[in-house]
């Protein structure tokens, strides 16, 4: 049987952690954007970049407590960003049918904007797909961590 106190987890940590993490989280976010954007040239791509984007918010959650982050990025907004990311991905795929004739065709690479190899604008729709996936995965993992951090004191759980 699990007995004993489960800590509240909403008050946050000491001043040093709070100050440093509020600076570092911007750098982590920027690094995540870099991994997402250059996904067709360097390792990473949509999923890995999305995980890094979400982890900047998780750092904030650990340092400041859950309620602070909920005011910063409220739950309904994160849900809508999630759906927006998935919708962008589906839009890119459907534009392949409309503009090219085949589902998920790389229409930018083959018709409009081939670009030069090894540059940022080169692989057609792949950077757009990476951005959509990064947005979706970031929002999803943020939501998952937020919902899992609801504390249960003993047997009474506050779920809505």
């Amino acid at each position, binding site marked *: 049987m699990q007995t004993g106190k489960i800590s509240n987890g909403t008050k946050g940590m000491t001043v040093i952690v709070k100050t440093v993490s509020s600076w570092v989280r911007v750098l982590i976010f920027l690094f995540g954007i870099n991994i997402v954007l250059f996904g067709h040239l360097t390792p990473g791509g949509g999923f890995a970049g999305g995980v890094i984007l979400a982890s900047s918010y998780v750092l904030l959650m650990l340092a400041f407590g859950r309620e602070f982050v909920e005011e910063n990025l409220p739950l309904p907004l994160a849900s*809508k960003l999630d*759906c927006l990311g998935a*919708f962008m991905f*589906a839009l890119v795929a459907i534009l392949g049918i409309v503009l090219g004739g*085949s*589902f*998920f*065709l790389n229409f930018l690479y083959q018709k409009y904007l081939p670009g030069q190899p090894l540059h940022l604008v080169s692989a057609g729709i792949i950077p757009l797909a990476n951005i959509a996936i990064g947005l979706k995965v970031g929002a999803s993992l943020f939501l998952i961590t937020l919902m899992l951090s609801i504390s249960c004191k003993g047997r009474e759980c506050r779920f809505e």
Partner: protein
Amino acid sequence: MTKVLPAFVLIPLVMAFVLPVFGKKGKNIATVLANLVTITLFVLAIACIGKSGVYQVGNWSIRVGIILVLDGLSSLMLLAINLVSAAAMLFSARYMEQYTAKSKYLSLFMLMVAAMNGLVLAGDLFNLFVFLEIASLASYALVGFGCEHEELEASFKYMVLGSVASSFILFAIALVYGNTAYLNMACISKSIQASGLNIGLTFALALFIVGFGLKAALVPFHAWLPDAHSSAPAPISAMLSGIIIKTLGVYALTRILFNIFGVSISVGWLLITLGLLSMIAGAFLAIGQWDFKRLLAYSSISQIGYVVLGIGLGATLLAKKANPAWASLALLGGLFHLVNHAVYKSLLFLTSGSVEMSTGTRQLKEMGGLAQRLPVTRTACTVASASIVGIPPFSGFWSKLILVIAAVQAGLYWIAAIIVFVSLCTLIMYLKVQRYAFLGELPENLQQIKENKGSMLVAMAVLAFLCVLMGLLVIIPSLRDSILKPAVDVLTVGPKHWEIAGILKM
């Protein structure tokens, strides 16, 4: 026709992400949209009967790209999947009012339908795995949807065994890739026919049988099914029992066994043994149950045993190179039983949901005499029970007859005797349901119940009507040749199917 193939996966997937935006206020709009989507997919599935083709996603060539393949077996499964999901969605328009968060339910349901459509259309092994996982995850979440004690426990058990099965399947796919260096089903089958089975591929075949057997709830691996199917909400039980265990389990196993690896006598006898065990164990365990939905769940195990028995019989006859007409007959019996079972088992689960919504209980001992108060539910349940037992002229009779004739013609008289014996056990269990639930006298606390209205009745009536009509699929030769025969032909030609469909030349 092949240009429409991505729509089967794309439309429900986009809908799954649009529906949560509606939230609590737009519940009715969301329900209407979801029903429109499932009915549109059903109409598209009817339009795909008898056609075949290949769709290359993104115009990449066959060796390197994702392809969607429509052939006889795929069109038969598409028909079954979209029919049951349209009926279940119609039923849940009214039934899910008792739960909160209905928009999340609709979104998960759409994901499940999209994944199952994608699975039967997949042309390469890894896409099959991805769609299998999406459908499994959506069904794990939907089984525990009500968040009561028993639903969570059932969902946990289902999820552990399902994840183990998925790991086995991924391991087997990795072994196949390591031995043949292709992922496309056509290229793998060409490579295996050229070089034969070495020890890695045999081990991969064994892992595939265990993994898909866990998903299809064959008897040594059936422990999750009674809990999951009885604790889920009624339309989800109908979907689980009616299509998920068949698509994720039986269809995938059949596709891999017949079209990629090629059948052999030992594998055929293994399938026959598993089928016989499932039939007998499911029937015996079901007779002693007092919970309505648990009885139906054990009966599902028994009926899936019939399907696997038919397919195993066909595999053995094909491998022995006996008269091909007998193998076609056995495969016809198995596949027709699959489609029949989808229709009448989902109807049975929907009637149990209707009974539960009216009376508030699932225990047979607490019900009685419901025939006076719930006439439509009672008629639907009687039609479905008569069909599953095998009373002519309902549809179940024809598929069991074909299986018995196939067993007799192959010279295996003891299998035919076991089929008839298990049908008698099925009769016993459904007579028990009818006697305790619908006949007898009404207890005092249930005097005030009324019949359910609206979309639930429409869904049950449509499925009951189809139960009666499905027998015509086998009797009328033109219907049989356009719907059932192409599916059987895909399986009888085995690994040569990919050349006949013209895929290897692309």
